[in-house]
């Protein structure tokens, strides 16, 4: 049993704008091939859900581990 009431946090990590995103590009090309038209750019990121005691250190976690600031940007929100 956790001794604290967990807070749910959702972190979204994605390629910085302007950085080549081969995954997004592959998906963008695959969609019309399946008959889905009208698709512009596609970017593929990563969603990380965590239970934490407080949101205080989320930025530190993102900068040091969850995202690589050289190539990725992140945002996060408290879900519940």
């Amino acid at each position, binding site marked *: 049993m956790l001794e604290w009431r967990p807070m749910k946090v959702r972190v979204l990590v994605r390629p910085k704008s302007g950085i080549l995103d*081969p995954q997004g590009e592959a998906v963008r090309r695959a969609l019309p091939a399946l008959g889905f038209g009208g698709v512009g750019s596609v970017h593929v990121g990563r969603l990380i859900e965590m239970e934490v005691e407080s949101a205080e250190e989320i930025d530190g976690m993102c900068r040091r581990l969850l995202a690589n600031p050289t*190539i990725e940007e992140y945002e996060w929100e408290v879900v519940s």
Partner: protein
Amino acid sequence: MRIGVTVFPGSNCDRDALYAIERTGAAPVELWHADADLKGVDAVVVPGGFSYGDYLRPGAIARFSKVMKPLEDFAKGGGPVLGVCNGFQVLTEAHLLPGALLRNVGMRFVCTRVPARVETAKTPWTSLFESGDRLTLPVAHNEGNYFADERTLRELEDEERVVLRYLDNPNGSLNDIAGICNAARNVVGLMPHPERVSEEALGSDEGLKVFESVLSFAGVRV
């Protein structure tokens, strides 16, 4: 001379690196990821593989292993460090080398041999080469597409810190970069695998010279 090879869960080129080192006449030393010191080695190789299953990003978890703290101190003190493939990714994640390695442009794992050119002999790991030397080296990676911002890229070129350049770019890396070094030139990262071509029975021994270079650099006759 004693040369260490770090071993993380998921490393798979550590044995090849130890073998290549042995062939140069140096003493190979295994450095376990949970070791708190480098056992007094004179140089360190961070080998290829899939440390921690490439979870999160290649090298992102390995970079916080216990052995990385003494390795970072060693590198900052000028000790020769070579990262190959996943080892290169670990060194960029640890900020010992600038930039990052993105997914290959073709979205495919590339496993082949590529022609490449040594761009500088001014590193411990290329000291026996001459700039312009051509090599054919194995590559085997999914994230080998070197990226750095424009300023960093210009610095790398102006300071002759591109160590190895593809002659036939397999992954879309900027400026055909296959390997770079840090500003102090003691830390080198290469995507191709010199340790996999360390004797004729493996198809070529062209890669052995990388390991002989660090011996020669340290004043050992090879």
